[in-house]
């Protein structure tokens, strides 16, 4: 087994890693780069706690080899805020109490962000919002406050600028 030298672009910054190719993206992010916002909650690609964005698409970083993410734009929860200003979805989560223990929250925010990016300027139904976060388990909130937060961003309550 040969280690590989790869560069991962995370939240706009290039990180050089020298890793065993079996390293999962979530391990690269958490253990090698040191961004612990992204979590892990299962071994079966079920819970979504490890969700990050690759090229603005939500993916589960526990089921992607880090080597496969080279050359792509990776965004983690740490990358949602800009210069201390929270993103609209983060503000909406705070306003709606859309979290409790918070362990699923980073992954949930990434799924929500990807959903919002994909549906920018479009009308969405409640059902579509629920489908948008279907891949993320939350054991605490019962989801409805999360759906409300996403809805309020869609409605334009958090226009940036």
């Amino acid at each position: 087994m040969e280690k590989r030298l790869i560069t991962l672009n995370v939240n706009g910054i290039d990180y050089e890693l020298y890793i065993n190719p079996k390293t999962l993206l979530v391990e690269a992010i958490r253990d090698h780069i040191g961004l612990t916002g992204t979590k892990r909650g299962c071994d079966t690609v079920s819970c979504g706690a490890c969700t990050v964005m690759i090229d603005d698409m939500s993916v589960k970083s526990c089921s992607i080899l880090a080597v496969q993410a080279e050359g792509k734009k990776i965004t983690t929860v740490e990358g949602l805020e800009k210069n201390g200003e929270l993103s609209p979805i983060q503000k909406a989560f705070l306003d709606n109490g859309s979290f409790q223990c918070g362990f699923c929250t980073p992954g949930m925010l990434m799924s929500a962000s990807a959903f919002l990016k994909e549906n920018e300027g479009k009308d969405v139904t409640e059902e579509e919002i629920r489908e948008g976060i279907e891949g993320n388990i939350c054991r605490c909130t019962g989801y409805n406050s999360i759906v409300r937060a996403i809805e309020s961003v869609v409605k334009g309550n958090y226009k940036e600028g």
Partner: protein
Amino acid sequence: MIHDFHYLKPGTLKEALAMYADHEDCKVICGGQSLLIVMRQGMIAPEYLLDIKHLNELNYIKFDEKDGLRLGATTTHRAIEKSEVIKKYYPALVAMENKLASIQVRNWGTIGGNLAHADPAGDPAPVLIALKADIKVGSAKGERTMPLDEFFVDYFETAMEKGELVLEVHVPVTEPKTGIAYQKFNYLTNDMGIVGVAASVTLNGGNTCKDARVVLGNAGPTPRRSKKAEEFLIGKALNDDVFTEAGKIASEDCEPIADIHASEEFRRHVIGVLTKRMLKKAYQEAQGK
């Protein structure tokens, strides 16, 4: 724990096929949405892992009004789900993809990887078989094509030989007056089906059945057509009683296995119900055309 492996990253498809032929104990990874789970459980521990995820040559959706639809093997589920042309001509595929796993899995997992994994509970196979799809596989030695319902051999086993990988899925143009419907039965909407049924109905003028496909998911070691149900339907004037009877036939023409989620008896029961319903839905869609 995932065992160590040597990582192979070919630049082109040709290189990939050559590498695959050259390495003995070698597995192919594309999206890895199924593969990494089994590797983590230690069930598979290949010496070499050949990564084809990045091969753009295999990433395409092509539609031609005569030839039909061609999906490159590394096309993601999400791309299929979002494709306007697939929505127009093969809406059953879009509907199926929408309920497959989660958005995250669909963003990265691929149609080729899904079919190669050969999970009898997989969603795409029954729908593609109902659509009369065929599949092209290739190796360093050449390519071959076969009907998709001949591609699956056993639990997690395909008809591919050593060195072959999935290249393309081809879905022919749907015959006029054809309807297709798929539904899986599960506890959570995007779970794999405890059982699933895809049905297609092609009508003669009026309401007699010219052709039919009844494809059962997770009702045996592979996705399977109930040829008995299909034969029963062809030539008949279609109505609720016929659909119910076809469901009964299908429910006995399969080998579902009991597990903690459902007994064998219940699976057969649900197959009967779903077959009846999907036939009716396909029939109504065919009538509308």
